[in-house]
């Protein structure tokens, strides 16, 4: 392998390092590698092979150590921790809301009422909001909350009409139908707000 090609290969291998490290030390490392390579070429034969092996085999553990150090430093940064919290909250909300979507959609078909009943349509409205929240968290959150509120009110009203003597059953039904939407709506609105604050 000729020297310029070896230097280009080494410059490519430097991409294994974290970007800030590469920015600070990349040029110097290439320079030092070039000087070592010149010396190994002068000495020739096995020295060149030994030099290449020594440099390339130690590069991977050294790059891993730098990544690990960079990660430890970032973990001490409150802004980074807040970002990780936001990311975790966002994905938990997304995955759990998908599960809720699945459960509710499978439940709609088994109900005794027609699929186009007002409560079913409101549920579908809420489920649409959950999907909307994947892309537009605040808007999705508002749609979900609205759906949850209307679902709860309608269910409470219906149960009061059916069993007027037991409002507690009405409250329980209202919470069962609208509760998950209210929780996820609030969560997505909060995540959206945090994301906007972070972006600002």
């Amino acid at each position, binding site marked *: 392998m000729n020297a310029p090609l070896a230097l280009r290969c080494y410059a490519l291998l430097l991409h294994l390092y974290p970007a800030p*490290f590469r920015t*600070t*030390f990349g040029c*110097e*490392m290439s*320079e*030092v*590698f070039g*000087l*070592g390579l010149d010396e190994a070429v002068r000495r020739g034969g096995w020295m060149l092979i030994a030099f290449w092996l*020594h*440099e390339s085999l*130690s*590069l991977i*553990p*050294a*790059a891993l*150590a*730098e990544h690990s*150090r960079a990660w430890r430093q970032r973990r001490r940064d409150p802004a980074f921790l807040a970002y990780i919290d936001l990311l975790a909250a966002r994905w938990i909300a997304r995955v759990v809301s998908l599960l809720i979507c699945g459960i509710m959609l499978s439940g709609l078909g088994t109900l005794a009422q027609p699929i186009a009943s007002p409560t079913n349509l409101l549920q579908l409205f809420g489920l649409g909001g959950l999907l909307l929240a994947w892309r537009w968290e605040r808007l999705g959150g508002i749609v979900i909350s609205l759906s949850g509120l209307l679902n709860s009110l309608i269910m409470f009203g219906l149960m009061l009409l059916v069993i007027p003597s037991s409002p507690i059953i009405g409250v329980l039904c209202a919470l069962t139908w609208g509760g998950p939407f209210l929780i996820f709506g609030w969560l997505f609105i909060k995540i959206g707000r945090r994301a906007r604050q972070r972006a600002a």
Partner: protein
Amino acid sequence: MTTIQTQDELPLTESTFFILLSLAGGPRHGYAILKDVQTLSDGRVNLSTGTLYGALSRLLEQGWIARLDSSPAPEEARPRKEYILSDLGRRILNAETARLSSLAERARLRLAGGEA
């Protein structure tokens, strides 16, 4: 950093010790440190470029060394970076040297049959 805090940093790894020792002789650039470490350790410590710069980055962060621009040679387009031992680095190197001397002295006494 107090003496107690300096003691907390000890013992140094062999490569750290030799890098600091190399810089105790004056400012040096990367390749000069690499060759000097090899000479100081009688060829036993052969740092690769990656290992050397990983160590230099850590030492810079700890404030044991500093990085400076040296004036470029006429054929060089840009200034070379040189590394210099800081006061803290020198204190730590002195403490490690004293620790190693004390260890060696105890070993010598014990091997000579005296009390250690």
